[in-house]
């Protein structure tokens, strides 16, 4: 398996925790993401209400919910794209209300339906985002990341010629170029064909396993959550209706045959 060679102190630390060589790192928070009473309102509409969420380091967390449940609003608040009406967001212990810029250095983000610049090549697109993240001469790093994603042969091709799945790969590449601690993926498999879904799932699992990156993903595909996530949360009408690890969830609902049944029983409960 190919691996990324550029590690930050934090990612080395995280790897050592995951591999069991060190039980805990002093420089590391137990939780990568913590929200306290996070609320977002648009005029009279409350999109998200008092969200109290915590995601541990190195987890793959899946946020589930119907359309309009507040999933994208949550990701936008966590990535500092939106300012909360009230409540707080902490990423790796950094408070977004005090230092949003520092949070932006720690995170990678892949929005839903990312298009990128069609009249530019993979390299030109990635160089731009790498420079924005503060990487000075990013060419070697870009090649390394594309190699990791098995995408090096498309280095000098224009994005306009790519399929949705290929664009999504470039999207993942831009999100991990700067070696983020936390990766946010908004409906990452949306619009992909089954082969594209499988490839992207493999990439997500590898990223988490190889680098210990904490991954927060929004999705409504329960099959993806079952195969990918180590813990889940369910949003219902802008409120967090449920949060637990995947194993505990399955143990908690022994009578349900699948995650879909569990999800529906939580969704329909008052």
């Amino acid at each position, binding site marked *: 398996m190919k691996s990324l060679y550029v590690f930050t102190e934090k990612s080395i630390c995280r790897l050592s925790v995951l591999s069991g060589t060190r039980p805990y790192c002093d420089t590391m928070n137990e939780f990568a993401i913590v929200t306290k009473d996070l609320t977002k309102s648009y005029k009279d509409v409350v999109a998200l209400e008092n969200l109290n969420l915590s995601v541990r380091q190195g987890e793959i967390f899946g946020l589930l919910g119907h359309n309009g449940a507040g999933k994208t609003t949550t990701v936008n608040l966590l990535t500092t794209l*939106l300012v909360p009406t009230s409540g707080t967001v902490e990423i790796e212990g950094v408070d977004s209300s005090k230092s949003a*810029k520092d949070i932006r250095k720690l995170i990678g983000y892949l*929005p839903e*339906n*990312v298009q*990128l610049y*069609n009249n530019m090549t993979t390299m030109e697109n990635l160089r731009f*985002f790498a420079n924005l993240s503060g990487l000075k001469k990013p060419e070697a790093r870009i090649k390394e990341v594309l190699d990791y994603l098995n995408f090096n042969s498309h280095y000098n091709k224009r994005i306009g010629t790519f399929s949705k799945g290929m664009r999504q790969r470039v999207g993942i590449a831009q999100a991990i170029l700067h070696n983020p601690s936390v990766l946010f993926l908004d409906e990452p498999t949306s619009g992909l064909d089954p082969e594209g879904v499988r490839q992207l799932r493999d990439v997500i699992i590898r990223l988490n396993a190889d680098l210990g990156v904490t991954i927060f993903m929004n999705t409504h595909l329960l099959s993806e959550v079952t195969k990918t996530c180590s813990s889940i949360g369910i949003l219902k009408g802008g409120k967090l209706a449920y949060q637990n690890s995947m194993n505990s969830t399955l143990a908690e609902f022994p009578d349900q045959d699948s995650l879909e049944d569990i999800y529906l029983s939580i969704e329909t409960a008052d």
Partner: protein
Amino acid sequence: MKAIIRQELLALSRERLPLMLFTVFVSMISVSSLIGFLTKTTVSDVWIRTREAGLTSAPNPFASLSPLYYARNSIIYIILVGTLMAIIAGVSSALRDRKAATIDLILSRPTSRSAYIYGKLIGITIWLSLSLFLVGVIAAVVISIIFGAALPASDYARLAVFFLLALPLLSGFAVIGMFAGLLSKRETSALLLPISFWAFVTFVIPQIGTAARPVALLNPVPLPPTSGGPFGALNFFIGPFAVSEQFKVASGKILNDPDISGDFSKAIISILGFAVLTSFLISMVKRTSIRGVLSE
């Protein structure tokens, strides 16, 4: 900010609409000197025939004219084509990231709102500078060829100042385009709003202050402002906002055009003020507005 400037230059060099207008702009400036030359040749021929027929003893009207006279038509092409090119560059720049859905990728990185806006603005200004430099060189070469010799150094300097003066005018209109692109919810309104503003500034305001002679607005020579009466009073207040007319005044003076009247310093202040004011306006665009979603 460097990354945004570089990206802006790369994008402008590849996008179809700004490139098409750039080609039209370069072509028009190139032929404008030729049009000046043909005007001189035609009028001089008529003058020679009239003198030979003994119908006039007046001197050739072109005898005392500066070779910079041939650049006169460039003024109107900068106002009509150059400003439109700048508006399109500004609109394209603002819409690009929203259409490509990359705006969230940019704003989720450690890049400030001002670095984003001013990076784009600097990129567009560099692109406009390069365009003006190119048309300036073309104009200088064509005029020298028509003149049959190298121009005096002072004439080249005047030509350079003329094209340099076009930069704040074009930058101001590019900012108006960016402003509309950043705030509009629709692509059509992002294009229509700045073009309406341009038409208002170029054609409506001057008419109010010059007793409504619309055809004359397409001439490189500005209309003499109305003095006295309600139009005169109105012109005193709104005249400086007619930046295109002010550009005609300042450019005409720089190019030694004998037909130009008007206050040179007032014209310069008006053009520079336009550039500064628009730059200030765009600095007030909020981060949330930049993220606004296009509905088409």
